């Protein structure tokens, strides 16, 4: 049977509510979903960062040092490490004046995936091609 595609759209800023963290952790759990499915079945999330959601991706977050909690940066890095596609809205980054070199990567963890900075129209396409949308 075919894969089921889900667009996980993260649109809220970090650390105000739990929602961006939960967006990443729910997406990462696709790795083990096969335990509960039949052979060949899978759920593939694409993570889309839009609006204030792009603020979650700024690197060097000191959340563990200051609040004793895993940073959202770590969750983003883990998402790359498990080969999730993370699409980042270019217009929103530009609007906030955030250059690409301020954003997280997971090279130090040996991830092959990188953030994919794309125009909003690409994110629209990802949403259109998804079976289900989940807004975080």
């Amino acid at each position, binding site marked *: 049977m075919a894969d*089921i595609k*889900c667009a996980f759209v993260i649109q*809220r800023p970090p650390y105000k*509510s*739990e*929602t*961006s963290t*939960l*967006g990443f*952790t*729910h997406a*990462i*759990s*696709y*790795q*083990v*979903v096969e*335990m*509960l*499915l039949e052979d060949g*079945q*899978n*759920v593939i*999330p694409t993570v889309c960062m839009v609006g204030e959601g792009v603020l979650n991706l700024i690197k060097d977050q000191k959340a563990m040092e200051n609040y004793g909690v895993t940073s959202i940066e770590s969750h983003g890095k883990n998402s790359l490490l498990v080969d999730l596609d993370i699409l980042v809205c270019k217009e929103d980054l530009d609007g906030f004046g955030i250059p690409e070199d301020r954003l997280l990567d997971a090279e130090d963890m040996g991830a092959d995936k990188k953030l994919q900075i794309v125009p909003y129209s690409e994110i629209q396409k990802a949403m259109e091609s998804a079976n*289900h*949308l*989940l*807004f*975080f």
Partner: protein
Amino acid sequence: MGTLTLGCFSSLVGSKSLDFTLKLAKAAADKGHKVNLWLSGNATVVGKNHQKHLKDYSTGEKPVLELLEKGVEICECEACALARGIQKPDAIPGVQWNAMHWYLAKIYSSDRVLHIGGE
């Protein structure tokens, strides 16, 4: 008849998003649809037993029991519950505890998914 999977992160009291979720689940089950309900984040409080229903506050225990009786599958995020001091013996009997892949697995075989995210 179809399958609807609902996910909810909203807290029990104050926000009416969790009330909305429970009511929509009931309306769908009443029409004969199969309904799955995933509770994560602050929504996990709804799966706790011994909620005192004061008139100023929403309560989740009664509608949760009704949904279970109607065959709605309800599961809450174990880590989210533990972090709030809710332990297994505090859970409403019949509410499952599992991790997030439970939700994705239910999504796999759903016709419709409504994810009610953060506040």
